[in-house]
């Protein structure tokens, strides 16, 4: 049986969590299919990664080159195309991350492989692959079948498959590949996020505001509420996109990850990117007028109502209680 390949994702000298999630899923698939999970390490100095990775895979393919010190999807694509050609794997697992989203579609297109992105479940039946992925802003799941192909590329959503313990001892294979650094696409630098005067990761109480707030002027109501209960205001992506609040207030996969004692989501629908940044909160409360909003599948307590009616009433009750 052809093997499963999983691409190791690293940034700024650290292996990213998604790698071990891909390995965990890959091991399960390999077990069911009676094949091996092989990790692919493309790095300038692979030695710093291999001890951790070797425990989690049956094999590792290592390609060392200065070119891989920073992520460049063009160079990764060249390397993976050659590895796929040599190893003919059944499945290539890549994270559905900023890194995988830049790489997987062009990789699959360039060598004519079927691709399923952002998968949350995956199985192989009689050699055919099916996957489950979300559509319509997380409100619908879709089961889809990939066309028959010797190799398929699958990108996996972060935080779904977990990182199960493993005590394997991977065989390491070093490959020499010819990779050309393209002159038309050059990595320049990483730019660290700017932190403002409020650090939402440090507060025990965070009030998160989403699209349901409707107008910038209405933010004052939320600020006022947060202040009254000793919390700070964070928000979802659309609020930052509209420039109503600065980027350092954004909660989610491309913003901050918070773990407060109390998180109150106001007019937040609950897109998975946002949930990824706040699911570590001890208690989650959601106020939203849409009873079908996915946020109610994450929250501990919910109020389905107009936030402009609930918020002032709740503030009064909480202030009375404080006295």
């Amino acid at each position, binding site marked *: 049986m052809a093997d499963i390949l999983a691409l190791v994702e690293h940034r700024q000298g650290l292996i*990213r969590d998604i790698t071990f999630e891909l390995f965990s899923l890959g091991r399960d698939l390999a077990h069911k299919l009676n094949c091996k999970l092989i990790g692919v390490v493309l790095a300038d100095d692979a030695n710093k990664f291999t001890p951790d990775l070797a425990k989690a895979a049956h094999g590792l393919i290592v390609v060392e080159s200065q070119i891989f010190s920073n*992520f460049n999807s063009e160079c990764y694509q060249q390397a993976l195309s050659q590895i796929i050609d040599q190893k003919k794997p059944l499945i290539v697992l890549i994270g*559905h991350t*900023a890194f995988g*989203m*830049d790489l997987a*579609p062009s990789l699959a*297109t360039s060598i004519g492989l*079927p*691709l*399923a*992105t*952002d998968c949350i479940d995956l199985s192989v039946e009689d050699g055919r692959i*099916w*996957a489950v992925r979300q*559509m*319509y*802003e*997380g409100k*619908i*799941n*879709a089961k889809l079948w*990939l*066309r028959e192909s010797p190799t398929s590329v699958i990108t996996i959503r972060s935080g779904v498959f977990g990182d199960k313990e493993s005590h394997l001892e991977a065989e390491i294979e070093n490959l020499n590949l010819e990779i050309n650094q393209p*002159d*038309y*696409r*050059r*990595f*320049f630098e*990483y*730019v660290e*996020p700017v932190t403002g005067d409020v650090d939402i990761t440090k507060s025990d109480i965070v009030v998160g505001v989403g*699209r349901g707030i409707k107008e910038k002027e209405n933010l004052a109501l939320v600020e006022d509420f947060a202040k009254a*209960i000793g919390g700070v205001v964070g928000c979802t*992506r*659309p609020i*930052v996109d509209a*420039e109503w609040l600065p980027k*350092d207030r954004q909660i989610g*996969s*491309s913003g*901050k990850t918070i773990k407060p*004692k*109390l998180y109150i989501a106001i007019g937040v629908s609950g897109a998975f990117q946002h949930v990824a940044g706040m699911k570590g909160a001890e*208690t989650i*409360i959601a106020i939203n007028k*849409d009873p079908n909003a*996915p946020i*109610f*599948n994450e*929250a*501990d*307590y*919910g*109020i389905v*109502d*107009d936030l402009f009616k609930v918020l002032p009433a*709740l503030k009064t009750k909480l202030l009375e*209680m404080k006295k």
Partner: protein
Amino acid sequence: MEIIVCIKRVPQTSDAEVRIDSSGKSIVMERLTCDINEADAYALEQAVLFKEKFGGTVTAISLGTEDANESLRIALAKGADNAIRIRAEEFGYLDGSKTARILARAISKTKFDIVITGCMATDDAYSQVGPSIAELLGIPHATLVTRVEGGPDKLSVFRELEGGLLEHLEIKLPMLLAVQTGINIPRYASLIAIRRAAARQIDTIGKTEIGDADLTVDAEVESLFIPPVTKRAEILQGDPAETSEKLANIIKEKGLI
């Protein structure tokens, strides 16, 4: 600068109930309003910003059924010079890969220096079409772009990574940008411009112009289902005075404040 922008008309589902139809493979469209996909609205704005800075023309392309004309007219009203609809009804089932092939063929028939797409459509959420088009056209790409500087021969491109980190790249044109929401503030079209665009003829092309060889479907939806609920909030019942009192009591009992 010859600028191509790809836009998709999608149902607006963020505040709506989404129901599965009797086929089990698609959703019930009645009662859903449709509009230009969110990220594509930013792509369109970026296209118009490039035109304002570097001159040239903006061509908006949409693979869609006749109602996509409405979104193309909005593109014209906001500053696109040309609009082309590819008649989706002639191509049957569309997945991300087939969509990219059709769009890439249409784009390859025109002159272009830069192609701009949104980084994801909110309906099928593949995040696949932009970089696949780039590969088919043989040009470099960058996805999740939240800032661009410089030009016209080379752009400084900033991609948004996890945790708010930005990746700064330099890319030479021709290229494709798959932009993330927030890269700019999309403008509103003026009433006069909307009225003018309403009178414009939208060019359409189909199978004859594009051809239908090698348009295989890579991934086909077998069934849709409502995501299984593993956890459900305790919903507090009553009017705002009652629900907020109940909630305040819970907060107090649990010592959360």
